[in-house]
């Protein structure tokens, strides 16, 4: 039985130099200790985001690894059919570990490397990111209809709707604002959707017993390790995702296997259904989920296909940003429905937004919350930068 849920993913090691930098980074004030005193993390408050880890000047914070205990073991086990998914933010950061400039997209080499490491099928989270977006977009429409009193939508939750794909944010809401939970989208995160699909649809399509499928994900995120071990993610009768490794850990595995990453021939991901819309590629940046789900909602509600998506107003780097999108709703005779959206980047900025929602003051319909500054590209599982500015 894993202790991830009870002990948390992130721990301070005794390399801690007591510099106290991390306490200002932590969005939940989970790190205790004064300058000069070794620091420690209060598990109860920690949301496993790993921001302290990638910002510790002395590399004194570690995340629990599933590589040896789970992933390598499964790869060596001939009875396991090991599939792997990689989140969009991984491909633009993995190259940094091999001397590439940040942002270089190395996905084709990444697919090749994963095959060298022994994964039986190499898929891409982009596909289920599309599913998440569709789910969240559709759910938003249903909540809007419920809010407008349209009959048949009474079962849907209240507005505003919060996104659910960031497990750090979800744990924060659970820990601190349980009253806000009905507002959080019921859609699984792309990682968990992929896991579920791999044990159901994929097993069926490949003709493999779902019990022998081992589902691994490569994530820019340490909170995803916590998410994958949550007990509720077993709807298919099997654990959706069996193990998670971070971008850093994938780089370590590639290096440990002696693979010369940069000279690998480009390869493609295995496909198991249609093509990705490309909407998911912007998942890694803040505003990505929001933009994509809104596009879905717009198309469904207005019946018009937007060939050019222009929600640029929601992009940027200030922690809380908002925008209004006017949607002509076909079902309401073309009545224009203004949808107010908000993006919160950084869990530490979400409190005011939540207080407004709980007090009934919020004007928003849809709120995206991503824990990490700039989104998953700067997640706690990404390569550690050593810039001095």
């Amino acid at each position: 039985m894993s202790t991830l849920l009870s002990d948390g993913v992130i721990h301070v090691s005794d390399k801690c130099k007591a510099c106290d930098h991390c306490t200002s980074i932590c969005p939940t004030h989970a790190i205790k200790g004064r300058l000069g005193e070794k620091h420690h993390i209060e598990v109860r408050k920690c949301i496993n985001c790993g921001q302290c880890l990638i910002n510790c000047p002395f590399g004194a914070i570690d995340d629990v690894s599933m590589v040896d205990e789970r992933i390598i073991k499964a790869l060596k086990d001939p009875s396991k059919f090991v599939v792997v998914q990689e989140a969009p933010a991984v491909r633009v950061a993995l190259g940094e570990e091999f001397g590439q400039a940040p942002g270089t997209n190395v996905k084709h080499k990444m697919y090749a490397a994963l095959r060298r490491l022994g994964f039986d099928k190499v898929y891409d989270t982009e596909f289920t990111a599309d599913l998440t977006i569709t789910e969240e977009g559709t759910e938003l429409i249903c909540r809007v209809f419920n809010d407008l009193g349209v009959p048949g939508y009474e079962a849907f939750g209240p507005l505003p709707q919060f996104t659910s794909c960031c497990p750090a944010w979800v744990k924060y809401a659970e820990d601190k604002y349980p009253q806000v939970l009905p507002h959080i989208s019921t859609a699984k995160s792309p990682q968990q959707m992929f896991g579920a699909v791999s044990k159901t649809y994929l097993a069926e399509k490949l003709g493999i017993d779902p019990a022998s499928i081992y589902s691994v994900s490569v994530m820019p995120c340490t909170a995803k390790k916590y998410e994958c071990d949550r007990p509720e993610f077993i709807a298919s009768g099997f654990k959706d995702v069996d193990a998670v490794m971070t971008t850093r850990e994938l780089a370590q595995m590639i290096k440990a296997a002696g693979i010369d990453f940069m000279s690998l021939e480009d390869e493609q991901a295995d496909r198991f259904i249609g093509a990705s819309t490309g909407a998911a590629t912007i998942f890694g940046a803040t505003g990505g989920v929001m933009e994509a789900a809104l596009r879905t909602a717009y198309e469904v509600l207005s019946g018009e296909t937007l060939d050019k998506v222009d929600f640029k107003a929601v992009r940027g780097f200030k922690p809380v940003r908002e925008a209004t999108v006017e949607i002509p709703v076909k079902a309401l005779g073309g009545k224009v429905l203004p949808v107010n959206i908000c993006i919160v980047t950084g869990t530490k900025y979400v409190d005011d937004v939540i207080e407004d929602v709980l007090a009934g003051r919020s004007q928003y319909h849809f709120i995206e919350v991503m824990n990490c500054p700039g989104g998953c590209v700067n997640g706690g599982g990404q390569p550690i930068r050593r810039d001095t500015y």
Partner: protein
Amino acid sequence: MSEDVIKGKVLKHDTQTRTMHWIHLLAFLILGITGIGFYWDIAGIANIFGGPANSSLVHRWTGVVFTVAPILYILLNFDRFSRFVDTITSFSKDDFAWLKTMGGYVPFIKVEEVPPQEKYNAGQKILGILIIIGCLLIILTGFPMWLWRDVVAPATLALCYNIHFWTAIIMILLVLGHFFLAAIHPKSRVEFSSMMLDGYIDAQITAEHNAKWFAELQKTE
């Protein structure tokens, strides 16, 4: 070198200089001891100061004393300080010659005659320069480590720690050497009282060790 015995004493360091030196010395000791306690995680040291967090508080506020004392001194004694800086930064032929003989301090370097020196010999000049640079480095890294620890980039903070630590180690070694020469070595321990006690030093010794300065003193008298 004069064979005559010169009677009397000369004032080498006045009250303010000696006070500043004492304060700086004590602050340095506390900073060095607490700092070493941090680096090597020595519980015994931290506990003397009331545990790691309090030890750090002592370190930082002593750091304030360590910074403010010389600044006050310089502001109150600007002329004296400029002369000091002038002296320690100008190296003459005699200074280089002195360095070649190592001032006669090293037993296995045979020395006929040590070249005449100013108020500070070439070795003391170098020490003075190194101490000033060292203090600047340690102060300019110490305060960011304290006050800007939240805002600076992690790598910058790590760099500050490295500079702070290595400067501290070099300074501690320099100060140990300085202590040995100024308080223990039989040839120079007479200097001890001129800084640590009343400020005076034997005129005869000065005439021998700091001939140029002594000549100047006699001119102005």
